[in-house]
């Protein structure tokens, strides 16, 4: 990928032109801040994470090197919470797929419209820019057993109130809100892509007698597959690291809403004590899981993502 100025042509040894020299110096000046920032706040912590995961550390006493004990403990029977929580995170990730499917349908409906498409786009995007904390509090109230909005309606029609955030209902409840409130960005991405599909494709299909469903499945779906892949990949990465919504709404009880991030947060001087070494090893395990999921995604994508050219 040789997209910007490269140095294939070496400058003659004797003397660089003044312009060239000043360009070089300015080049380093331009990239220096971001490079320094990444070194200080990304590369350094990354290396430190590996060391930290091999120690026992409570922030006040010197870190004690314990080898792979933290990882052994994470895989032992003593760790009863972490792996189920990873499973929970995967269950919650169903929301990513649902949200993707719904956004595509909605984007397809919107892009066929002349009237009102802007209004719909705006409304669908509104939840995305609101903070997770405020949204979480809002939905906690809506799902509330005694006074919640949904149970008010249920009671109005004479039904029995449902505890929407108990062990049996919490997962679908949270997935529903994640899907409904997580579509904004996806819809925008899909609309932008659908707009770029050449109209001639659809016209040709119409001449061949294709209906709107056929047009959707045979033209739109493959055309937006690169975007679907992007949404799926970033969505899964985000979903496996979900935190704010879960902390605000259930804080891990019932146990099938316990997320890996909540556990890690609790080991950082929170409810489970100060075990920074152990927290770091759990974080690395979660990071590795995310990396594996992403790699799998890329591997499978070759089967269903169509790139033009």
């Amino acid at each position, binding site marked *: 990928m040789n997209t910007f100025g490269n140095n294939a042509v070496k400058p003659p040894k004797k003397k660089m032109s003044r312009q060239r020299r000043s360009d070089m110096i300015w080049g380093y000046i331009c990239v220096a801040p971001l490079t320094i920032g990444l070194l200080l706040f990304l590369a350094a912590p*990354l290396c430190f994470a590996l060391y930290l995961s091999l120690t026992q550390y409570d922030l006040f006493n010197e870190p004690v090197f314990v080898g792979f004990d933290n990882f052994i403990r994470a895989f032992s029977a003593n760790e009863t919470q972490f792996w189920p929580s990873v499973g929970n995170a995967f269950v919650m990730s169903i929301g990513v797929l649902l949200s993707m499917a719904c956004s595509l349908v909605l984007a397809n409906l919107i892009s066929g419209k002349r009237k009102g498409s802007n209004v719909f786009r705006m409304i669908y995007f509104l939840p995305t820019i609101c903070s997770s904390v405020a949204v979480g509090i809002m939905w906690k109230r809506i799902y509330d057993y005694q006074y919640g909005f949904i149970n008010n309606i249920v009671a109005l029609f004479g039904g029995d109130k449902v505890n929407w955030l108990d062990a049996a209902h919490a997962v679908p409840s949270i997935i529903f809100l994640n899907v409904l409130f997580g579509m904004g960005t996806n819809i925008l991405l899909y609309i932008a892509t659908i707009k770029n599909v050449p109209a001639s494709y659809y016209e040709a299909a119409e001449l061949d007698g294709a209906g709107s469903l056929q047009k959707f499945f045979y033209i739109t779906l493959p055309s937006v597959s690169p975007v679907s892949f992007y949404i799926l990949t970033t969505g899964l990465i985000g979903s496996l690291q979900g935190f704010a919504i879960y902390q605000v709404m259930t804080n891990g009880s019932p146990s099938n809403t316990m997320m890996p991030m909540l556990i890690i947060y609790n080991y950082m001087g929170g409810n489970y004590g100060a075990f920074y070494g152990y927290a770091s090893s759990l974080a690395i395990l979660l990071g590795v899981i995310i990396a594996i999921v992403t790699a799998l995604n890329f591997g499978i994508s070759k089967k269903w993502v169509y790139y033009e050219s």
Partner: protein
Amino acid sequence: MKLLNVSKMRVKRAGEIGGKALSYFVLIAVAFLMLVPFAYLLACSFKTAQEINLSSFFPKQWTGRNYVAVFEETVMLRSFLNTFLYIIPPVLCGVFMSALCAYGFARLRFPGSQVLFSCMMATLVIPNIIIMIPSYVMFANFYKWVGTPLPVMLPAMFGSTVMMFFFLNFLRTLPRDYEEAAILDGMGRGGIFVTIIFPLMKPAIITQILLCFINQYNDYLTPLLYLGNDEQLFTVQLAINQMNSAYAVETEKLLTACVVAMVPTCVLFLLCQKYLTDGISVTGLK
């Protein structure tokens, strides 16, 4: 024969109209589902403490007391000032640094630029979660900055790779004519960036400032980790979370605080819709 054709066309036309009606129905139903929670929240914020737990949607007696109470009795006002203080300098500085870096990669030749660029793109793969704990330990023990806004502000000052990439793509679409003319006139690269490139990048800059602002305003985990328990340092997100986890939750005030907390990003969105939607179509939010 002709008659048959006409009736066939009528059926087809009826189907089209039906399909259109159905699609509008779906769109409106989903929009309704999304707006009802907000309407409910807004309606609740005007209820009195006596009415808040009654089942009616709208308050019987509208009151603005909650809004006064939120600003007078809680740290909300202070937290608003804090939030803007914490995020405006990093947003502006970070956007500038990212644009500068993109300019370096797009227009200037220097040894190692390809390698550096590849390394930067590779950092996008690292999940945040791995960085979180060691960063916390570093800020807590080496720099002793926990309990100050510095860990929230400083890392963002240097810009981000995602933003840099966004600007790089934008710069590739800009013609080089102006710069070349300026070079012939003997203008230095720094001057060119500030007086020519930066103004030309205005739409991209505004988009990124908005996105960055919204992301940082809504960020919860970073301030939660670093700002400690001092109420006077709280950001808006921490302030409403504190009201939520209080021992005796005053629901009407909590919900009012949520409305207030949502206002800044919503206003920004309504005012700058075009910049935002265009930007998000390219990079995505969060």
